[in-house]
């Protein structure tokens, strides 16, 4: 699977490679509808297509897998830390913990939207802070 040159963005519904779009869709599904299962499917997809000829496919696979791991670490790790430090019976833990979880979770989804958008348009994408550097 190699990358096409200059798709017609004004007329084509989905000019991007389907595997890249699927990777971003699974990233979002993992966050929204099928947590864990979405991640497992994403890793399986990465395993199968990690040596794809398409740089866009490789980019989106790598970005989604790495960001899912780093994102889950900061999302779940910090939330658990807040409750461990503050105590589960402390209302302050709940106020800070729930607000933190909602904000970071929503931010990850929005970043996923940008990633999906880039995949649909056959463009590379790097998740800010969380994603690995884009290969040349």
């Amino acid at each position, binding site marked *: 699977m190699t990358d096409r040159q200059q798709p017609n*963005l*004004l*007329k*084509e*519904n989905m000019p991007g490679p389907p595997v890249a779009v699927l990777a971003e869709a699974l990233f*979002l599904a993992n966050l*929204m509808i099928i947590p864990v299962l979405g991640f497992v499917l994403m890793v399986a997809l990465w395993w199968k297509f990690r040596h794809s000829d398409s740089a866009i496919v490789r980019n989106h696979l790598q970005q989604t897998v790495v960001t899912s791991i780093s994102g889950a670490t900061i999302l779940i790790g910090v939330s658990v830390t807040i409750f461990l430090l503050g105590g589960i019976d402390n*209302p302050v833990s*709940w*106020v800070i913990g*729930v*607000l933190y979880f*909602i*904000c970071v*979770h*929503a931010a990850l*989804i*929005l970043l996923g*939207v*940008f990633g*999906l*958008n*880039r995949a*649909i*348009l056959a463009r590379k994408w790097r998740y800010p802070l969380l994603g690995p550097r884009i290969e040349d």
Partner: protein
Amino acid sequence: MKYQSQAVALPYFIAAIALFAGQVIFGLILGTQYVIGDFLFPEIPFNIARMVHTNLLIVWLLFGFMGAAYYLVPEEAETELYSPLLAWILFWVFLAAGVLTILGYLFVDYNTLATMTGNNLLATMGREFLEQPLLTKIGIVVVALAFLFNISMTMLRGRKTVINIVLLIGLWGLAIFFLFAFYNPTNLVMDKFYWWWVVHLWVEGVWELIMAALLAFVLIKVTGVDREVIEKWLYVIITLALVTGIIGTGHHYFWIGTPEYWQWWGSIFSALEPIPFFAMTVFAFNMVNRRRREHPNKAAVLWALGTGVMAFLGAGVWGFLHTLAPVNYYTHGTQITAAHGHLAFYGAYVLVVITIISYAMPILRGRAANSPKAQVLEMWSFWIMTIAMVFITLFLTAAGILQIWLQRVSETPMSFMMAQDQVALFYWMRVWAGVAFFAGLVTYVLSFFVKGESKPLSA
């Protein structure tokens, strides 16, 4: 503009913005009353201010939708409006009815208002969001039917586009579901059950169709993306909205006396309700990123993108937060609901109406886009209002979480008013965020008066 009759949209947009300002002012009064209980009492009691705040929201959004339809439908149908005169008459009738109703709330005791306006003939008043006197409700139906006649006739004699059809289905749905405002069974469970057929099936049903159609129209105009591409997205979005939203009504039936199966139906379908909003976010960004040239109206593009993101956050994320029955068991009717309500209405409906106003208003004033200076100010207003609303939401969410803990989780639960006292700090912060929101609104209004070299309309 392409058709002279589109000009009737202008007074609707102006009225919408004026009433929006009124709504925000009453929001500030309410926010202050949360922390200074007797602020403006007895002149404006809390319950009256709340009624004015929510009713103004509905009325100004309806003005915005009608103005949008008068602008959009002729352009999509490629024909003049069926009757511009009727649109003008309806404008004045609706404005007079709206203003008189608000004045009635403020200057006449609600019970007396009910007696004066025939509530004893058909009791419809006294229910949240549907407090309007019977006469006003009948007026709304008459105005809505005449408005629908006008735009339906326009579409029927012109080109039938997907955008026009979706918009019209949404607007007809709006009118039809409002009829349940006249049904007021004595059984409280039945009353609430059908009350949601107005409130929920408006905002999480047919209004989403209106929103998607308006967004699609603006995106076609500012991006130049092929209509077929946008229409396919539109089909997907409205299907998702209706499939999830209609049975999603069940998330309002958890604890009101309806059968228990609603806890399952409501939880499952409303958990899926963020999906159409999510699709709208992808849709907006995808279309804007496809464009080949920069549209001169950058402010309209920003409002359109903002609609996608904020609607998803407010309606989607904050809705999901408390929509599952086991969670809602604790969160029901707390400040979490208020947080969701504020961000959802702002993100989905306030922003989409401002998007179409931002796109259409310069054209109605004879230019393709406002001057760069005016647009910069307009974009500032977007950021000020949006950031302020995010903070209002975060403070209300914090207040809600603490309220739930103190009232419903703690081993020594507090009474409602005692818990309110404990969350006052968050209410204070909400007031200041509200002041910032008002500053954003003032900035927005000022942007209409900024002079400068604007891009002329091409012939």
